[in-house]
């Protein structure tokens, strides 16, 4: 069976620096797949290549066996791969509901002529329903009229995911979703991600919070200095000597 997402020999060079070097991994449908590694390992760069934010220097990104490498971000999104951003990248000046509505853009494409003539009311209603469901899913229903910029940090992170979820993607890419969350919020968010996954959304996430990663992922890919290091289940990764060395430093790093 073709995996949902496959990365082949993916390479990104910034001038002389090779940020990601011939990376290979597969994400199976219905899994929660983690991408970990020490700071500067090239996780976010990999994300940016998969989502179309960067064009890879070499290698391919395959979605259901189709080459999507180098497509612009909105084209990748239209094929069902939606990402969130590190930090709280939101439409801070718009209401929470409007943020979620923009997430429904792909399903309910705005039509100029119909909008002027008022023939799109059913699409607008459906989009509104979809946006509200999304907000409810992430526990944001009671703040829908607030400005996104005024929300608490935890809420902002949840909203970022609600926007992505509103488009009902096949694959959702989460870039450090737990940053700045307290343990309670992290636990709640993990529960939501499991529910997302149970509904059929495949998740690929980059994260530093090891407890969350180990508790959540079916499969983990570990990178270090741009290179593939190890792959396996959380238990395998936890005990993998190369991974331990990359994080804690082996004998040659100690000095």
């Amino acid at each position, binding site marked *: 069976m073709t995996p949902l997402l496959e990365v082949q020999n993916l390479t990104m060079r910034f001038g002389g620096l090779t940020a990601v070097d011939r990376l290979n991994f597969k994400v199976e449908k219905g899994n929660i797949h983690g991408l970990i590694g020490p700071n500067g390992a090239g996780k976010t760069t990999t994300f940016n290549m998969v989502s179309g934010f960067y064009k890879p220097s070499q290698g391919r990104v395959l979605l259901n066996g189709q080459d999507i490498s180098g497509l612009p971000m*909105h084209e990748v999104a*239209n094929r069902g791969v939606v990402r*969130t*951003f590190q930090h709280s990248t939101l439409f801070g000046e*718009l209401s929470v509901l409007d943020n979620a509505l923009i997430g429904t*853009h792909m399903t309910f494409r705005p039509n100029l002529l119909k*909008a*002027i003539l008022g023939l799109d009311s059913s699409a607008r209603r459906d989009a509104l329903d979809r946006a509200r469901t999304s907000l409810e899913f992430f526990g944001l229903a009671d703040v829908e009229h607030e400005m996104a910029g005024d929300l608490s940090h935890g809420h902002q992170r949840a909203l970022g995911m609600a926007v992505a979820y509103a488009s009902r993607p096949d694959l959702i890419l989460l870039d450090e979703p737990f940053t700045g969350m307290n343990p309670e919020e992290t636990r709640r968010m993990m529960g939501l991600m499991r529910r997302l996954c149970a509904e059929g959304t495949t998740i690929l996430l980059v994260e530093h919070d090891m407890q969350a990663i180990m508790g959540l992922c079916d499969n983990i890919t570990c990178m270090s200095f741009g290179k593939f290091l190890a792959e396996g289940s959380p238990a395998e990764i936890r005990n993998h000597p190369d991974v331990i060395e990359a994080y804690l430093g082996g004998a040659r790093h100690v000095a």
Partner: protein
Amino acid sequence: MRNFVIWVALAIALIVLPNLVSFSQQEVLVFLTINILVVASYRLLTLTGEWSLGHVVIMGVGAYASALVTKELGLWVPLGIIVGGLASALIALALSVPLFRMKGFYFLIGSFAAGEIIRLLWKRFRDPFGGAKGIKGIDPMPDFSIGIYQFDFFEPVSYFYFSAVVVALCLWILWRIEKSPVGLTFHAVHWQDKLAQASGVNLRRYRTMAFVIASGFAGIAGALLAHYIGTINPNSFDVEVMVFVLTWAIVGGTGTFYGPILGCVVLTILNEIVLRELGLEQTRPLIYGLILILSILFMPNGLESIVQKVTRRKDAK
């Protein structure tokens, strides 16, 4: 119901208004009506976060197009006005190809350069654009009667009524666009283009769409102007006029639909009534510049912020 009463009252006020002012002020009313369409259409472009310095030249494209098709090809003037709008939209579509490779400040400068090129083309080619002297003797709107009122387009009052109806229709369309999902997407493109793109929004397509629509309505405004004054030349659409449009938009504030319109109305009244009464209309650029600086310093959100403060206070009571 309450809204309906307000609209009827506004319509009656607009019908009565020109009969209460002097002949020269009636002319000002016509220009004001047209300028309102220019700033309101300009706002649609600013929704996507892009500011253009070519808007007035694009308006001129509509004026030239409408003047030429009516004068040279004998097209019926109302159709010519629509052709003017379409011509502006088409030129904008062509310009969007090079211009939307840039954004922000670079787009601003690029749009200025593009506008100047168009203006120089008008000056350079005497046939058909009439060179620096422009086009004279543009056909006026043909007179017609709607039973209760006889439109006589040598009277500014008649032209005011006509243009007010056209502009009101255009404003209604602009309003519908802004309040639609398309308008929301424009906002999204402005505030966080990366996230919008990750949500599947084709940024370039939406920037182009806003530019083309804004330009189309500017073209209609230009055509309305051409058939009123009967003569246009490249200097009617130079950067000085663009600065006035910018001033109206900035002083009024671009955060709301009515902001730029408010700016346009208030500054026009200031100019035509206060400055003219004081005999200071020659200093208009000076005073506009001063107002622009003062409003940026002390009223960064424009006149609309004052309106919002007042209405909010009323709501609180």
